[in-house]
């Protein structure tokens, strides 16, 4: 998933698109290393911060990865439990990015 996400982020650089993660790793030191090694440049929320409920619980996430695709107006357009096929993911994103560019 990460290599494809990296190429997505690169391909759509400058377009009306952003990838935001919600990361569930528990060891910050190891995470920092992994982020660097895997060239994860996009932003992520910490899933669980001290004293606050996990975002994944608030969103009833039942498996990883779970993906939500949200359009430029903030409406949920698509959901996946488990990695979707790359071409499916690309197609869905491209359609929404095009619509955003057209201001629809």
């Amino acid at each position, binding site marked *: 998933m990460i290599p494809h996400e990296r190429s997505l982020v690169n391909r759509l650089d400058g377009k009306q698109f952003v*990838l935001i993660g919600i990361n569930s*790793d*528990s060891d910050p030191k190891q995470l920092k290393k992994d982020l660097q090694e895997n060239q994860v440049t996009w932003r992520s929320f*910490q899933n669980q911060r001290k004293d606050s409920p996990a975002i994944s619980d608030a969103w009833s996430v039942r498996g*990883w990865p779970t993906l939500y695709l949200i359009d430029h107006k903030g409406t949920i357009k698509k959901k996946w439990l*488990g990695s979707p096929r790359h071409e499916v993911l690309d197609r869905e994103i491209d359609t929404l*990015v095009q619509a955003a560019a057209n201001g629809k």
Partner: protein
Amino acid sequence: MKLLVFGFAVWVAMGLSGSLVGVQAHEPATQAKDSAAEEFAAIQNDWSQAQQAYRRALQEAKPGEERTRVLKEKRPKPDAFAERCLKLAQAHPDSPAAVQALAWVMGSAPGTEAARKALTRIKEKLASITDLDMLQKRLAELPSFGLGELAPAAAEKARRNLDHPRALPLLLWVCSQTRYSDSKELTKLYNETVDLVMDRFLERKELAQLAGWLTTDDNPVWAEKHLRRLLEKNPADAVKAQATFGLASVLKNKDEASQPEAERLFASVIERKTPAYVNLAGRAKTELDDNKLRGIGKPAPEILGADLDGKEFKLSDYKGKVVLLDFWGFW
């Protein structure tokens, strides 16, 4: 489709589940068989002690860095145990313990050279079996996953004997071993086998599990087609229940136009009071509630949080852009 990681706890539990094959009572036969069974029991015993030591170390480790280190470094390596098992199987090829030992290697040391050797030996053992009853019996002795390589031959034998009572269970076994595969050939075999089962055995009550698999398939168009056929043609309550829930789940993730039907189907799972439906009612309720808040077509709820550098931000900062929100982790 890719295997989902259901959280940290399950991952740890998977790591700890050492002995996949219980020590079974062996046939009281020759001296050789007894010594093979004894040797296998000894290997299992040594392995479970290594696992226990690891579990203790994990419990005693402080969460965070120390636990990560224990997870990485102290986890017992199955290599030496696998070698002992392979030797045992070679020395006592006809003992039931040989199959158990080979199965243990495959289950406990997946991805290793030893596991490949074990799989090759099991493949050889199974190749000569043409009787479907015997084939299914042998397969049932193996670990319940990671046997995709045995699937093509098993599928072929079942396909040639579709009228045999064991043909359907064998085809379902083939599906179970191929559905999460990374290999293109095995994914193709999975799809073909499901299509065959649906054409030939559409009305059989054994298809509830298949309906469950279709629920999370990564080809939702194909899954929807089959789930609709099951719902229409299969008379078994357990299959109908699973197909209703499955179709609702697929439609929930499809598009905005499908949401009313998805919600109606979830509601129907909750309403029916037969055991198969009652079993799924809790999940259907969760899905329905979730869909009302975060369904397709709904405004994305706000997320307030901090990024991995500790800097505060919120989801709505990105309004005006298409957002792909990914719940992820390296683990």
